[in-house]
Structures are given as structure tokens and as C-alpha cells.
């Protein structure tokens, strides 16, 4: 889009800081965070709740709560996003970057059919689209995420779907505009274990089809190890380690990463105590940081 010859990275984040005012003074929930993601690449951000990973994704989308302040630079394919007005930013949201949230039930509006909500996402970025065309796109998107009988289900309301199916709807909604970057914030946390694997498989599949980049935010190291090429470990708002997924698991450098890895229960573990991470460090007020925790 900009420099000739060399394509700029899909996403560049530099010196990102997010601050929340609290009665006890300002709390930095993200501190000096920086990373890049190449087109079609995938990056996992891992951390405990309160580590600032969700706020990072909201900052990229420009969806931080109004009382939060942010500084730093976010570039999408070489284009600066951080200085844009909300109006300009809204053309990027949902079109170039699409997002899948943690809890698909509360993230879908109960008052509209899933079809209507997918159509909305499509029509927000395509001029002169008839309802019928948008509806066809919605049905196709639902078929792509393997919702059986999509032509009928398109007129159903979110509460008529199961948890896994709702998350499929969310993914369909994110995909219908063919975005370059998909941000998935804890996409499987609210789901049953058996459904989690299906959703992850689906995410991998659609990524292969569309070539979209993936930013996966999770607390689950196992998920990251399967899904992304690179991993960034966050703690108390800052990056403690960044490495390829392979290396991170074979050779964790930072003690915190090691502690996190140890805390993952394995099948070959002795039955008994679960290891936990001790010494959470200077974690900012946990409740105030994770926007998705209710």
C-alpha cells in the first residue's frame, strides 16, 4: 500500500500504553508494548487475567472505554490508526480488522436475528447493497462456518443457538467482510471443552481459506501452541517474553513463562496437586483491566 517493493507488516504496535484512572491514582494496564505481525501470520498473546491482553486488543480496535487513555502507535498495513477520528476508524473496524469476542451469548444482541446482525456487519462497509444480497452473504458466511441448514437458521435469534454455534455465528460475522486481520479474544473460554477444539479447528480452517492474519488472545497456553506461530507473554501490562511457539515451549527463557508452563496440567502429571503461579507481581487492579469480565 505504501512503500514499493516491500510490503509493510500487517500490524505494527509500538510503545503502546493504556492507562485507567482509579481513585487510587492512574493504573497502567498496558506498558510500552510493541510487536509486529506479518500479513497472513499469527501471533498469540498469553497472560493471566488482568495482564492487559484484552485491553491491548481493544486499543488496536479503538474500542477502549472512554475513561481509558492510550498513547503509542498502531499501524495497519503501514497506515497509522492511532491518530484517526472515530469516524475514520469505524471504516477500518469490521472491514479490515474483525473481532471475535469471548462470550458469544452476551456479544450478540438478543433482539435481532443472527442473520440481521451478520447483514449489518456486511452492509456497514459495502455501499449500495440490497437486503437480498446482504442476506445471501449472511447465509454463505454461516455455511462457511459449517452451520447446518443455514438458510433457515439465518432467521433465528441468538438464544436459539448453542454456545458453540453462537461462536460460529460470531466468526461468520467477522468473516463476511473478508478482513485482513482477525482478532480473537479468548474465543473458546466460554465454551465446553469438546466444542473448544471444533472452534479452534474452524478458526484455522477459515484462516487458510482467506489468508487473514490472526491475533489470538488467550490465557490458555495449550491453545496458543496449536494455533499460532509466535507467542507473546504478557504480565502486568508488559511483554516478558516473545518467541516462536516452538521455542517458547521447548526453551522458555523468562521465569514467569516457565511458571506458566508448569501450571498447565498435563495428562502425564501425577494425580494430585495442581501447580499454580505464585507471586503475581505488580499486577494492576485485576477487576479494572479485563473489560470482558462481568
Amino acid at each position, binding site marked *: 500500500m505504501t512503500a514499493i517493493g516491500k510490503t509493510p507488516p500487517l500490524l505494527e504496535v509500538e510503545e503502546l500504553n493504556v492507562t485507567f484512572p482509579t481513585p487510587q491514582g492512574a493504573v497502567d494496564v498496558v506498558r510500552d508494548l510493541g510487536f509486529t505481525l506479518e500479513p497472513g501470520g499469527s501471533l498469540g498473546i498469553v497472560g493471566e487475567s488482568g495482564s492487559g491482553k484484552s485491553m491491548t486488543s481493544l486499543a488496536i*480496535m479503538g*474500542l477502549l472505554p472512554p475513561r481509558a487513555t492510550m498513547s503509542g502507535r498502531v499501524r495497519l498495513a503501514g497506515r497509522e490508526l492511532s491518530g484517526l477520528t*472515530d469516524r475514520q476508524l*469505524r*471504516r*477500518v*473496524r*469490521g*472491514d479490515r480488522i*474483525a*473481532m471475535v*469476542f469471548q*462470550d458469544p451469548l*452476551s*456479544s*450478540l*444482541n*438478543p*433482539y*435481532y*436475528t443472527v442473520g440481521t446482525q451478520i447483514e*449489518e*456487519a456486511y452492509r*456497514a*462497509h459495502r455501499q449500495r447493497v440490497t437486503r437480498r444480497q446482504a442476506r445471501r452473504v449472511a447465509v454463505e458466511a454461516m455455511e462457511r462456518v459449517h452451520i447446518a441448514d443455514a438458510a433457515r437458521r439465518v432467521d*433465528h*435469534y441468538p*438464544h*436459539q443457538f448453542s454456545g458453540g454455534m453462537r461462536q460460529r455465528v*460470531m466468526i461468520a*460475522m467477522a468473516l463476511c467482510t473478508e478482513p485482513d486481520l482477525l482478532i480473537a479474544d479468548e474465543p473458546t473460554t466460554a465454551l465446553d471443552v469438546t466444542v473448544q477444539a471444533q472452534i479452534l479447528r474452524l478458526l484455522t480452517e477459515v484462516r487458510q481459506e482467506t489468508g487473514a492474519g490472526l491475533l489470538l488472545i488467550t490465557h490458555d497456553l495449550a491453545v496458543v501452541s496449536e494455533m499460532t506461530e509466535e507467542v507473546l507473554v504478557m504480565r502486568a501490562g508488559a511483554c516478558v517474553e516473545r518467541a516462536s511457539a516452538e521455542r517458547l515451549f521447548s526453551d522458555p527463557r523468562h521465569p514467569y513463562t516457565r511458571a506458566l508452563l508448569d501450571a498447565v496440567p498435563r495428562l502425564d502429571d501425577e494425580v494430585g496437586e495442581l501447580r499454580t503461579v505464585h507471586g503475581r507481581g505488580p499486577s494492576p487492579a485485576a477487576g479494572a483491566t479485563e*473489560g*470482558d469480565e*462481568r
Partner: protein
Amino acid sequence: MARFLIARLSGVVLILLLVCLFTFGVFFVLSPDPAVQICGKNCTPELIERIRTNLGLDEPLLAQFFSFLGGLFAGRTYGVGESATHCAAPCLGYSFQSSQPVWDMIMDRLPVTATLAVGAAVLWLLAGVAGGLLGALREGTWWDRGAMVVALSGISVPNYVFALVLQYVLVVELEWLPFPGTVTFAEDPGGWFQNYLMPWIVLAFAYASVYARLTRANVIDTLSENYVRTARAKGLPRHQVIRRHALRPALTPIATVFGMDFAGLLGGALITETVFGLNGVGKMTADSISRNDQPVIMGVTLLAAFFVVVGNVVIDLLYTALDPRVRVNSA
């Protein structure tokens, strides 16, 4: 759906029967002998006895109740022989004062009350929702504070006090409006409007205030919902996010509250009509109270209960129409 309706309607009938029984009990057990009251000054024991027989007051209480109920659904005949009068269903009896059928008295005055109620309802919905929206979308600004101070006053000021203040300012001091009188729409639309303007405002003020607070709270709550975040993440323009994703869910509960308030409006109309001298059902009730005209009071109580109970059913139906989660799941 049909089963739901039948269950609901049988509940309605049960509650209305209870209301009848309760009202009947209070009036005919606790109050002084109606026959003596009807009889008036030049009373003789024989006259009282005749009134008793005519009204069926000499029968046992339960029998009286059943003839009252019978009158409601099938009409009844008072007295025997030549002096007998038939009261067609729905028979609520006759006024002690004017000897008119209560049902006709109510029906004569219902248009005034309906005009008052509908006008006030339109006013309070518009003002309340607009004020609440203003507060929610400009949260923390002077607009918000201003709207909420007005709403707080509206909740705190008794409507007869507000009515008198308004009348003093607009009619006595500024002379912008004439003293309320009786003008029909057909005679003089402008005068009719001026006539009803103050009663509308007075009746609407308290409701508008409550609705403004409720709307504000609901919209602020809804704006922090995850699905509003989703709507923004999809890149919808702000006005669409607010109109479709915040307002629709926030206003749905208000629609149901509105049904209940509207059905219960007869109580509020009573004071407003009295203060402004509007000749509606409310004023008739107040007059009947001061004259102890029990058949009229009882008739109005039953009618008001009927409105409230039916209003509740309508709300239930409305809710199923407005909220897809309550709708019968056909999937």
C-alpha cells in the same frame, strides 16, 4: 400460545372476582346503612323499609353479592311489581344522589378522562424518553445534570401543588392561558387545546420524570453491554449503534411499564381533574366520595381494577412481541 392465553385470562377473571368481592364487602359491610342515606331528610321507617326491599338490602349478604354479580353480567331488576326498574348489563347499580345508572354516568364522562389520559401519555413518553436519552448520551455534562434535576423535581412535587403553581403562573400572573373550562374539540379546537394543555402537563410531569430516570439508567446500562461493543467492532456508525443496539433493548422494558402506568391512570386523573375542574370520571369519583355515593365509587373502583388487570395481560402479550427471548421457541 392458546393455552397461555387461557391460563392468563382465567387468572384475570379470578382477580376481578376477588376485586368485586373485596369492594363489595368493604362497602356493604363497613359503611353506614345505604338505605338511610338514600332516604334523606324526610324519612320514615316505612320508606326505609321500602328502599331496603327495592335494593335487595334485606337479603343475606352473599345473596346480595350474587345479585350484584348477576347484574354485572346479565342485568338485574330492582323492586317488584309496578315500581320495578330493569338495569341492563353491565349493571353497576344506581347513584344514591342522582338515581342515574352508574354505568351511564361513567360512560358519559369517560371521553374527557380518555382525552386527558391519552394526551398526557403522549407528552410524558416523548418528554421522558427524550430527557433520559439526553442524560445518557451526554452523561456527566450539564445537559445531563439539568435534565435529572428537572426529573427529580418532577418526582418530588405533588401534582396538585404543581397544578396550582402552574395555574398561578400561567393563568393569574402571565395570563397566557384562560381559566380551564369546558370546551369541546368540535366547538373550538384552539380553545380545546388550551383547555387541556395544563392538565396534560400536570398529569404528565411526574410520569415523564420517572421515565427520564428509567430511560437514562437503562440506556447507560445497555451501552456497556457486550453486544454494543460488538456493534461498534463491526464498524457500525454511532447513530446506528445507539438506535438499533442500545435504544431498542433499553426501551423495551419501558414499553411494558408504560402499559401498566397507562392502565392505572385513573388514580392520577382523579386529582388532576379535580384541581382543574375537568368533568371526567376522576372528578365524578371525587364528588361521589364527598357525597358518600357508594355505588358510583364502587363502579369506578371496579372499572379501574378492570383496566389494571387487562393492562397487565396486554403487557404480557406486548412483551412476548417485543422480546424475542420470551417468544415461544419454535426451533
